């Protein structure tokens, strides 16, 4: 179904450009107008308006407008049609210009797919883009953002236990992956490997992953890729609809409840609103053999959105608040290397625990607020101007296992680490009117001002940061070819303030760089397409890489920053081919990402002495690194209703300057699933049962003597899923999903889980998911 959806989308898009029609010199008449939905009054995009009996027709544009030119005077029958609506015919007598507006009536069976044709993503079209939406997104409901993306080829996670997961794209993560939350660069303390993105996935109806360097459109830092978290368009002038999601997980006895209500206003035309909220509570996670003490989670999130549309003008306001409290496994607190070696030797944590929902020290509390206002205007001539401002406030508090010994200070119960990061972003994007109907493009300016206030144990300095970027992208589209090229310049000014020996020290940094992109997509046929892209991106060293100086307790390592670090620059080539037949499809992609001056922690020969003993000493250093990989995905309906699908993620990383390997590179993995689609029965639709297996290899390419423990052995996990939709009535439906992860309660540890030194990974986790949709 998705492939059919995409080919339809492509078909419509390609025709949209071919609005030029054969001309007859003597005929100067024209007919134009707007096609609207009779019920909602919304313009209908991509509807066909044709003259019956002639080979002459056009599609409506993004405002539902159409125009047929160079017609000879006479009588015509105009027909307007689009899937999902009843076709409409109108006879006209043409003498000169004529305006004919259509108001189409929705068909009883409204194919929702049509709505998708109106969606537009700014992502470079020649780069691989994987989108999770609809039923696929529903299956991930209740999980964190990082975990939701695990199913995408080429994407893995960097975890701290089971509740903190950061997405890893093609081996890169944290500051090298940019997250666009509803069009805004997510600005938190991304440098920390235990700082998960502060985003509620329930906000989104689409989560997309752009793989590879995408610096031109999204700005610096997008070296590994970009994650786009996108809510649905606001339901302007639509009746009230909503949904309620409830998910229960057996492991951690976690419950998640999330609801959305949205609609228009009867008395104000052009208005749409949405309110959404999520509550999550979970307790101690259980590995196959024991509970992990203090691994509960508590989350309360909500968002509000409202928008107004009038002719070409659109205004949207969005506010979201994410508030989480996460317990950190108490057995992961170590004071010295001896402590760590003892836990490793013991094979399981010393701290034993039963089940509890309580969240004690150590824990982290993070809140993230986003306030965004966006306004755009479509000019009649096809130009579009968009202006977005946003303010983000990220407040992160981290509590150590031990309170201060001093009773009066301990009584305050202050976090040992507090970060308050405020970011103001400002983006103006101008989409110029298509040149010759084939070349479209964007020019944009982005600025960011940010300040970080830090208190507690000195870890990173206070800083002020100012960024400005200017970009220009052009895209040439025909039915067979899509070519694009773009250029960007970014400037960053960073001022840091820290206390050294009780004195304030200020440092000033300036960074500036160009990024570029060039790519092509070739559609050989409706089924077969290929794309290639060469892009660059850069990333300025972040404050922790510049100024870290101390023991990283989770890692039992002494980490020291280097204030002379230069920005990293990535040159990424990526190519893929896709073939989609009705019964089978396959997509093969390869990439070669070369990163100049790649910043990493280099082990130093001599350990460093502290009061807790000698710690291995790591210094932030630069090298040149290459990331080569292959992503393969395919599916085959080899029997009626039975589909087998496979995904392969393969990655090799090499330190080119030092002829060696790098640490913390995700091992290769192979995902297989067998799915049986059940026949619809009465009110039950879309039923399925599927069984899946994930094989994760052992990471053998690691530098020698760089770790306390070699990477864990390969593991294989089985999973089981089933689901169905119950159509209660035209306006109500209930979706039910059952999911069992780690079906056989396999004991395993993952190389990219920072708790692999201390404890096994999560055991069996069964979940039941209910989704009630009403008013739809």
């Amino acid at each position, binding site marked *: 179904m998705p492939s059919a959806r995409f080919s339809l989308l492509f078909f419509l898009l390609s025709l949209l450009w071919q609005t030029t029609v054969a001309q007859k010199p003597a005929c100067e008449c024209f007919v134009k107008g707007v096609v609207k939905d009779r019920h909602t009054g919304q313009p209908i995009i991509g509807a066909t308006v044709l003259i019956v009996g002639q080979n002459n027709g056009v599609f409506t544009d993004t405002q539902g407008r159409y125009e047929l030119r160079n017609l000879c005077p006479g009588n015509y029958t105009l027909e307007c049609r689009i899937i999902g609506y009843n076709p409409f015919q109108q006879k006209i007598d043409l003498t000169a210009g004529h305006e004919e507006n259509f108001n189409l009536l929705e068909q009883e069976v409204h194919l929702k797919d049509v709505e998708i044709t109106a969606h537009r993503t700014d992502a470079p079209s020649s780069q691989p883009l994987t989108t999770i939406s609809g039923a696929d997104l529903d299956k991930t409901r209740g999980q964190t953002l990082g975990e939701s993306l695990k199913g995408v080829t080429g994407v893995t996670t960097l975890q701290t236990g089971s509740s903190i997961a950061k997405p890893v794209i093609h081996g890169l993560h944290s500051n090298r992956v940019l997250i666009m939350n509803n069009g805004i660069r997510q600005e938190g303390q991304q440098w920390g490997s235990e700082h998960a993105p502060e985003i509620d996935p329930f906000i989104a109806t689409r989560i997309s992953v752009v793989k590879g360097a995408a610096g031109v459109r999204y700005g610096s830092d997008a070296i590994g890729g970009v994650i786009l978290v996108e809510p649905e368009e606001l339901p302007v002038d639509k009746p009230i609809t909503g949904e309620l999601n409830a998910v229960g997980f057996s492991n951690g006895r976690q419950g998640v409840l999330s609801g959305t209500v949205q609609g228009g206003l009867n008395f104000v035309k052009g208005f749409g609103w949405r309110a959404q909220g999520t509550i999550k509570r979970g307790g101690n996670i259980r590995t196959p053999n024991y509970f992990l003490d203090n691994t509960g989670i508590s989350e309360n999130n909500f968002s509000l959105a409202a928008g107004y549309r009038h002719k070409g003008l659109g205004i949207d306001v969005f506010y979201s608040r994410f508030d989480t409290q996460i317990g950190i496994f108490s057995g992961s607190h170590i*004071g010295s290397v001896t402590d760590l070696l003892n836990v490793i030797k013991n094979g399981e944590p010393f701290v034993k625990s039963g089940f509890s929902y309580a969240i004690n020290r150590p824990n982290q509390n993070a809140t993230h607020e986003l306030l965004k206002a966006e306004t755009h205007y479509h000019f009649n001539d096809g130009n579009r101007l968009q202006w977005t401002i946003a303010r983000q406030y990220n407040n992160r508090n981290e509590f150590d296992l031990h309170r201060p*010994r001093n009773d009066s200070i301990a009584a305050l119960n*202050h976090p040992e680490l507090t970060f308050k990061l405020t970011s103001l972003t400002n983006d103006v994007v101008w989409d110029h009117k298509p040149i010759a109907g084939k070349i479209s493009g964007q020019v944009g300016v982005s600025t960011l001002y940010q300040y970080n206030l830090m208190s507690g144990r000195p870890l990173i300095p206070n800083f002020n940061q100012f960024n400005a970027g200017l970009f220009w992208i052009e895209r040439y589209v025909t039915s067979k070819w899509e070519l694009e090229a773009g250029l960007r310049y970014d400037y960053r000014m960073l001022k840091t303030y820290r*206390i050294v020996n009780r004195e304030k020290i200020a440092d000033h940094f300036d960074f500036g760089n160009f990024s570029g992109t060039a790519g092509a997509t070739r559609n050989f046929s409706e089924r077969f397409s290929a794309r290639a892209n060469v892009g660059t991106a850069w990333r300025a060293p972040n404050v922790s890489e510049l100024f870290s100086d101390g023991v990283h307790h989770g890692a039992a390592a002494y980490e020291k920053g280097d204030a002379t670090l230069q920005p990293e620059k990535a040159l990424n080539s990526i190519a893929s081919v896709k073939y989609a037949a009705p019964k089978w499809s396959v997509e093969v992609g390869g990439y070669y990402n070369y990163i100049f001056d790649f910043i990493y922690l280099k082990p130093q020969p001599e350990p460093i002495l502290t*009061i*807790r*003993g000698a710690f291995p000493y790591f210094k932030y250093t630069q090298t040149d690194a290459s990331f080569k990989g292959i992503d393969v995905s395919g599916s085959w309906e080899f029997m009626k209703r039975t589909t087998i699908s496979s995904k392969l993620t393969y990655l090799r990383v090499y330190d080119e300057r030092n002829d060696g390997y790098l640490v913390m590179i995700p091992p290769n993995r192979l995902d297989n699933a067998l799915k049986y689609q059940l026949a619809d029965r009465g009110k039950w639709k879309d039923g399925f049962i599927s069984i899946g297996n994930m094989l994760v290899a052992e990471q053998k390419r690691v530098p020698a003597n760089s770790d306390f423990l070699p990477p864990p052995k390969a593991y294989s996990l089985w999973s089981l899923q089933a689901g169905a939709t119950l159509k209660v009535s035209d306006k109500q439906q209930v979706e039910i999903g059952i999911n069992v992860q780690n079906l056989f309660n396999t004991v395993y540890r993952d190389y990219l889980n920072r708790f692999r030194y201390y404890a096994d990974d999560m055991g069996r986790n069964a979940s039941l998911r209910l989704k009630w949709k009403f008013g739809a």
Partner: protein
Amino acid sequence: MKMNRKLTWMLLAAMTTAFVQCKDSGDEVKPDDENELITSVTLKFTEQGTSNVSTFSYKDADGDGGNAPTKFDTISLKPNTTYTLAIELLDESKSPVDDITKEVEEESDEHLFVYTPSPAALLTYTYGDKDKNNYPIGLTGSAKTGAAGNGTLKVQLRHQPGAKNGTPTPGSDDVNLDFILKVK
């Protein structure tokens, strides 16, 4: 077109105002006075029956990182002698200097000092104090040296809130130092 121009100006004007609430983080940088460090450990050996006191210290006044430790003494003791051993912990990064020994004493039911000589024959440590749960603490005790020899003395402060059971296993290290020990 008039509309376009108006809109453009509106955007530009709004853009410039967006930075009005800029703030300077440099004004708010302050030293950390709440997080306690242990920057120095001093072992005081008093030869029993005399007033001969030898002290040996580890000192890293600015804590981990920054400047390297300024002092890491070699413990030098007489063979076959019994000493009274007292330990003192300070946080010298604060002013005034914070006495951590006192705080350990107040929360003695969460702390345990562990003295481990290597080779074991060099020294025998006997705890001289007990917490309210009758578990040893190790702020004071006695150390009896064996025959002459060289080795190390590992000094650990185990922080064991809610888990102290008299053994070193629970908790984590707040101090973990290997002093060079010479018995001669």
